[in-house]
Protein backbone atom coordinates (compact mmCIF):
# COMPACT_ATOMS: atom_id res chain seq x y z
CA UNK A 1 0.00 0.00 0.00
CA UNK A 2 1.42 3.41 -0.92
CA UNK A 3 2.45 5.55 2.00
CA UNK A 4 3.97 8.89 2.86
CA UNK A 5 7.52 8.48 4.11
CA UNK A 6 9.41 10.98 6.23
CA UNK A 7 13.05 11.28 7.16
CA UNK A 8 14.63 11.48 9.61
CA UNK A 9 12.38 9.94 12.24
CA UNK A 10 14.10 11.99 14.93
CA UNK A 11 16.22 15.11 14.63
CA UNK A 12 18.01 16.86 17.44
CA UNK A 13 19.33 20.32 16.72
CA UNK A 14 20.81 23.20 18.62
CA UNK A 15 18.82 26.37 19.03
CA UNK A 16 19.53 28.76 16.19
CA UNK A 17 20.43 26.07 13.69
CA UNK A 18 18.59 25.32 10.47
CA UNK A 19 16.90 21.99 9.87
CA UNK A 20 15.40 20.39 6.81
CA UNK A 21 12.69 17.80 7.19
CA UNK A 22 12.10 15.55 4.23
CA UNK A 23 9.04 13.80 2.89
CA UNK A 24 8.19 11.60 -0.04
CA UNK A 25 4.45 11.94 -0.69
CA UNK A 26 2.36 9.24 -2.34
CA UNK A 27 3.34 9.25 -5.99
CA UNK A 28 0.08 10.20 -7.70
CA UNK A 29 -0.91 12.81 -5.13
CA UNK A 30 -0.97 16.45 -6.10
CA UNK A 31 -1.46 18.26 -2.80
CA UNK A 32 1.15 18.25 -0.07
CA UNK A 33 0.99 19.45 3.51
CA UNK A 34 2.99 19.99 6.62
CA UNK A 35 1.40 19.79 10.05
CA UNK A 36 2.92 19.85 13.48
CA UNK A 37 1.92 18.41 16.82
CA UNK A 38 3.40 19.67 20.03
CA UNK A 39 3.55 16.88 22.59
CA UNK A 40 0.11 16.05 23.92
CA UNK A 41 -1.65 18.67 21.84
CA UNK A 42 -3.71 18.67 18.68
CA UNK A 43 -2.39 18.52 15.17
CA UNK A 44 -1.92 22.00 13.70
CA UNK A 45 -1.82 22.98 10.05
CA UNK A 46 1.29 24.71 8.78
CA UNK A 47 1.09 24.85 4.99
CA UNK A 48 -0.34 23.29 1.87
CA UNK A 49 1.43 23.12 -1.47
CA UNK A 50 0.05 22.58 -4.93
CA UNK A 51 1.39 23.07 -8.41
CA UNK A 52 4.78 24.12 -7.06
CA UNK A 53 3.50 26.89 -4.90
CA UNK A 54 2.02 27.47 -1.47
CA UNK A 55 -1.78 27.35 -1.64
CA UNK A 56 -2.51 28.00 2.03
CA UNK A 57 -0.51 28.71 5.15
CA UNK A 58 -1.33 29.27 8.78
CA UNK A 59 -0.20 32.00 11.15
CA UNK A 60 2.41 29.58 12.47
CA UNK A 61 4.08 29.42 9.06
CA UNK A 62 6.04 32.65 9.22
CA UNK A 63 9.31 33.69 7.59
CA UNK A 64 11.15 31.14 9.68
CA UNK A 65 9.62 28.38 7.59
CA UNK A 66 9.82 27.49 3.92
CA UNK A 67 8.81 24.57 1.76
CA UNK A 68 10.17 23.22 -1.45
CA UNK A 69 9.61 20.43 -3.90
CA UNK A 70 13.14 20.14 -5.24
CA UNK A 71 12.40 17.26 -7.59
CA UNK A 72 9.51 15.06 -8.66
CA UNK A 73 9.34 13.07 -5.46
CA UNK A 74 10.58 14.99 -2.41
CA UNK A 75 8.83 17.67 -0.42
CA UNK A 76 10.82 19.49 2.23
CA UNK A 77 10.19 21.77 5.18
CA UNK A 78 13.04 24.08 6.18
CA UNK A 79 13.07 25.71 9.57
CA UNK A 80 15.61 28.48 10.01
CA UNK A 81 16.98 29.70 13.33
CA UNK A 82 15.23 27.01 15.33
CA UNK A 83 13.78 27.90 18.71
CA UNK A 84 13.03 25.73 21.70
CA UNK A 85 9.31 26.06 20.99
CA UNK A 86 9.79 24.51 17.54
CA UNK A 87 10.22 21.16 19.28
CA UNK A 88 7.33 19.03 18.03
CA UNK A 89 6.35 16.18 15.76
CA UNK A 90 6.18 17.34 12.18
CA UNK A 91 3.90 15.42 9.87
CA UNK A 92 3.89 15.49 6.13
CA UNK A 93 0.67 14.56 4.34
CA UNK A 94 -0.57 14.29 0.79
CA UNK A 95 -3.85 14.00 -1.06
CA UNK A 96 -5.07 13.50 -4.59
CA UNK A 97 -7.44 16.45 -4.60
CA UNK A 98 -8.47 19.45 -2.61
CA UNK A 99 -11.09 18.95 0.11
CA UNK A 100 -10.56 15.23 0.50
CA UNK A 101 -8.77 12.72 2.67
CA UNK A 102 -5.11 13.22 3.35
CA UNK A 103 -2.63 10.52 4.22
CA UNK A 104 -0.06 11.27 6.86
CA UNK A 105 3.49 10.10 7.27
CA UNK A 106 4.94 8.71 10.48
CA UNK A 107 6.36 12.06 11.45
CA UNK A 108 9.72 13.57 12.33
CA UNK A 109 10.27 14.31 15.97
CA UNK A 110 12.24 17.55 16.15
CA UNK A 111 13.96 18.34 19.39
CA UNK A 112 15.59 21.73 19.75
CA UNK A 113 18.10 21.96 22.60
Amino acid at each position, binding site marked *: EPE*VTQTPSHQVTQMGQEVILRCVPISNHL*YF*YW*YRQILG*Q*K*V*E*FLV*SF*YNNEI*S*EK*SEIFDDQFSVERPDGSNFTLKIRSTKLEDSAMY*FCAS*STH*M*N*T*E*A*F*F*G*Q*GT*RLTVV
Partner: protein
Amino acid sequence: QQQVKQSPQSLIVQKGGISIINCAYENTAFDYFPWYQQFPGKGPALLIAIRPDVSEKKEGRFTISFNKSAKQFSLHIMDSQPGDSATYFCAAIPNTGNQFYFGTGTSLTVIP
Protein backbone atom coordinates in the same frame (compact mmCIF):
# COMPACT_ATOMS: atom_id res chain seq x y z
CA GLN B 1 -10.76 30.44 17.99
CA GLN B 2 -11.25 26.71 18.06
CA GLN B 3 -12.88 25.68 14.82
CA VAL B 4 -13.67 22.12 15.89
CA LYS B 5 -14.54 21.20 19.46
CA GLN B 6 -14.07 17.61 20.55
CA SER B 7 -15.18 15.76 23.66
CA PRO B 8 -14.48 13.97 25.86
CA GLN B 9 -10.76 14.52 26.35
CA SER B 10 -10.37 10.97 27.59
CA LEU B 11 -12.55 7.90 27.62
CA ILE B 12 -12.30 4.53 29.32
CA VAL B 13 -14.48 1.73 27.99
CA GLN B 14 -14.79 -1.94 28.83
CA LYS B 15 -13.93 -4.45 26.13
CA GLY B 16 -17.03 -5.11 24.06
CA GLY B 17 -18.58 -1.76 24.93
CA ILE B 18 -19.40 1.20 22.71
CA SER B 19 -17.04 4.16 22.54
CA ILE B 20 -18.60 7.47 21.55
CA ILE B 21 -16.62 10.61 20.71
CA ASN B 22 -18.31 13.86 19.79
CA CYS B 23 -17.31 16.85 17.73
CA ALA B 24 -18.98 20.15 16.96
CA TYR B 25 -18.17 22.91 14.50
CA GLU B 26 -19.35 26.38 13.62
CA ASN B 27 -18.08 27.03 10.13
CA THR B 28 -20.81 26.09 7.65
CA ALA B 29 -18.21 25.99 4.89
CA PHE B 30 -16.90 22.71 6.27
CA ASP B 31 -18.00 19.87 4.07
CA TYR B 32 -15.65 16.99 4.71
CA PHE B 33 -15.30 15.37 8.12
CA PRO B 34 -12.66 12.68 8.63
CA TRP B 35 -11.72 10.84 11.78
CA TYR B 36 -8.13 9.91 12.42
CA GLN B 37 -6.65 7.34 14.78
CA GLN B 38 -3.22 7.94 16.23
CA PHE B 39 -1.04 5.54 18.20
CA PRO B 40 1.84 6.88 20.30
CA GLY B 41 4.78 7.94 18.16
CA LYS B 42 2.89 7.42 14.92
CA GLY B 43 1.19 9.64 12.41
CA PRO B 44 -2.59 10.07 12.27
CA ALA B 45 -4.21 7.33 10.21
CA LEU B 46 -7.48 7.90 8.42
CA LEU B 47 -10.22 5.82 9.96
CA ILE B 48 -13.46 6.91 8.32
CA ALA B 49 -14.88 10.09 6.80
CA ILE B 50 -18.22 11.58 5.88
CA ARG B 51 -19.68 14.39 3.81
CA PRO B 52 -22.76 16.30 4.96
CA ASP B 53 -25.07 14.85 2.34
CA VAL B 54 -25.46 11.69 4.45
CA SER B 55 -26.40 11.33 8.11
CA GLU B 56 -24.50 8.15 8.83
CA LYS B 57 -21.64 6.11 7.47
CA LYS B 58 -20.56 2.73 8.71
CA GLU B 59 -17.35 0.82 8.09
CA GLY B 60 -16.99 -2.34 10.09
CA ARG B 61 -17.16 -1.49 13.78
CA PHE B 62 -16.80 2.25 13.13
CA THR B 63 -19.77 4.53 12.47
CA ILE B 64 -19.94 8.28 11.93
CA SER B 65 -23.22 9.99 12.77
CA PHE B 66 -23.66 13.43 11.28
CA ASN B 67 -26.21 16.07 12.26
CA LYS B 68 -25.96 18.93 9.81
CA SER B 69 -28.52 21.17 11.47
CA ALA B 70 -26.80 20.85 14.85
CA LYS B 71 -23.35 21.04 13.26
CA GLN B 72 -22.26 17.99 15.19
CA PHE B 73 -20.77 14.66 14.27
CA SER B 74 -19.69 11.70 16.29
CA LEU B 75 -17.67 8.52 16.05
CA HIS B 76 -19.07 5.31 17.45
CA ILE B 77 -16.81 2.32 17.95
CA MET B 78 -18.86 -0.80 18.47
CA ASP B 79 -17.51 -3.85 20.30
CA SER B 80 -14.49 -1.85 21.45
CA GLN B 81 -11.25 -3.83 21.71
CA PRO B 82 -8.00 -3.20 23.62
CA GLY B 83 -6.33 -2.69 20.23
CA ASP B 84 -8.58 0.32 19.70
CA SER B 85 -6.80 2.11 22.53
CA ALA B 86 -5.40 5.20 20.85
CA THR B 87 -6.02 8.91 20.43
CA TYR B 88 -8.82 9.84 18.07
CA PHE B 89 -9.04 13.16 16.27
CA CYS B 90 -11.97 14.53 14.40
CA ALA B 91 -11.28 17.03 11.66
CA ALA B 92 -13.09 19.26 9.23
CA ILE B 93 -12.12 20.73 5.88
CA PRO B 94 -13.82 23.68 4.17
CA ASN B 95 -15.18 23.28 0.67
CA THR B 96 -12.80 25.93 -0.65
CA GLY B 97 -9.62 24.89 1.06
CA ASN B 98 -7.16 22.21 2.01
CA GLN B 99 -6.52 22.95 5.64
CA PHE B 100 -7.63 20.28 8.09
CA TYR B 101 -8.98 21.76 11.31
CA PHE B 102 -8.39 19.12 13.94
CA GLY B 103 -10.19 18.66 17.21
CA THR B 104 -8.20 18.45 20.42
CA GLY B 105 -8.22 14.65 20.48
CA THR B 106 -9.73 11.95 22.67
CA SER B 107 -7.55 9.42 24.40
CA LEU B 108 -9.44 6.12 24.37
CA THR B 109 -8.51 3.28 26.67
CA VAL B 110 -10.29 -0.03 26.28
CA ILE B 111 -9.82 -2.23 29.29
CA PRO B 112 -10.03 -6.03 29.01
